[in-house]
């Protein structure tokens, strides 16, 4: 059966390619056609058809290597996964219909033909989906690392006073990271007061508040004090409306006010030493 399929594809390659491009153009949405120029589309399509048909010739190793390279190329081109799987299906049905029309197999063998094609295209679809998903997973994990690197640094400002500005949404993962940075920083810089600035945190819900309270508790355990600054009116509102108790933590509305309070706690003061020129 494979021989019949193979022979048909080899003989009718040009026809299949033309048909395939036509059909896929009909199916593909604007998005694909916009990102892929016509020429690239045709040449990539040719490669696609070449590759799909090569399955029957190549040994397994060669094929999976080619499929791998091809899939990565497609990913780079930005072809959506649905488009590629659709392409394999269209190709399969083109071959099936073509062989049927040319009457290369008997009526009784049509079922066999169908299964033959299916057995050959199925692993192909699987492999493509596989490569797509690994590529996505890799992207996601890379972005995760990038996000971790964005995590908050602790900045020593004066002897014994440090500031940690928080920016962006806080999830559990990030909260843990922040807590570690905070405590390690406090111990490393020997800070006695640390100001957590949440001006850049868009939403403070119970979860975020819970993490902040935990962080403040942990800071107290290592022997320092924690102050929460940058509390905007809407955040004060949500905190009170949600019934979150932040009474154990000193809070200030701006970093400036917090810094003044911190200096006071440390019995320090900033004074002007001369007239401004």
């Amino acid at each position, binding site marked *: 059966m494979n021989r019949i399929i193979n022979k048909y594809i080899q003989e009718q390659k040009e026809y299949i390619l033309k048909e395939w491009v036509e059909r896929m153009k009909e199916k593909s949405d604007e998005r694909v056609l916009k990102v892929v120029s016509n020429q690239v589309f045709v040449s990539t399509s040719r490669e696609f058809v070449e590759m799909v048909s090569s399955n029957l010739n190549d040994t397994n190793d060669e094929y999976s290597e080619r499929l791998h390279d091809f899939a990565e190329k497609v990913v780079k081109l930005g072809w959506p996964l649905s488009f590629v799987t659709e392409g394999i299906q269209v190709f399969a049905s083109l071959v099936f219909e073509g062989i049927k029309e040319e009457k290369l197999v008997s009526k009784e063998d049509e079922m066999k033909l169908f299964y033959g094609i299916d057995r050959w295209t199925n692993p192909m679809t699987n492999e493509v989906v596989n490569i797509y998903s690994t590529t996505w997973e890799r992207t996601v994990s890379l972005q995760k690392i990038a996000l971790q690197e964005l995590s908050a640094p602790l900045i020593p400002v004066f002897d014994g006073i440090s500031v940690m500005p928080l920016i962006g949404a806080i999830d559990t993962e990030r909260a843990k990271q922040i807590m570690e940075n905070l*405590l390690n920083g*406090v111990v490393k810089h*020997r800070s006695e007061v640390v100001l957590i600035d949440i001006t850049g945190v868009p939403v403070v819900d119970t979860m975020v508040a819970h993490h902040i309270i935990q962080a403040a*508790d942990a800071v107290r*355990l*290592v022997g320092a004090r924690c102050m929460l600054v940058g509390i905007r009116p809407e955040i004060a509102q949500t905190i009170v409306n949600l019934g979150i108790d932040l009474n154990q933590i000193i809070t200030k509305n701006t970093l400036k006010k917090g810094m003044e309070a911190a200096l006071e706690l440390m019995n320090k003061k900033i004074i002007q030493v001369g007239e401004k020129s």
Partner: protein
Amino acid sequence: MRIPILKLYDCLLVSIQWELDDQTALQFQEDLLHKIHEIGASGVVIDITSIDFIDSFIAKVLGDVISMSKLMGAKVVITGIQPAVAITLIELGISLNDVMTSLDLEKGLEKLQQELGE
């Protein structure tokens, strides 16, 4: 093995240098209370810089010894709690709320002097 308890004027100084097992912890509790009674200490500093984890049992022993010392009129400052230890304690749900803490032994002694001076 017993944890050594040093006397410094009217204060007691304890530095825990190795991993606490249950028996040592309980022995320490007893020894410290006796020593407070013996010299009439008014302050205790316990430095745990070298301890790299505290479970709920050790935390309970520490918390208890602090409350007991308070009853006997001695203030206790814990110093040198490591970040990893603080995080695990908080996640365990133990916040040691009434415990005084300091970054290191030096700052702990200062704090104790301040507290006792008031």
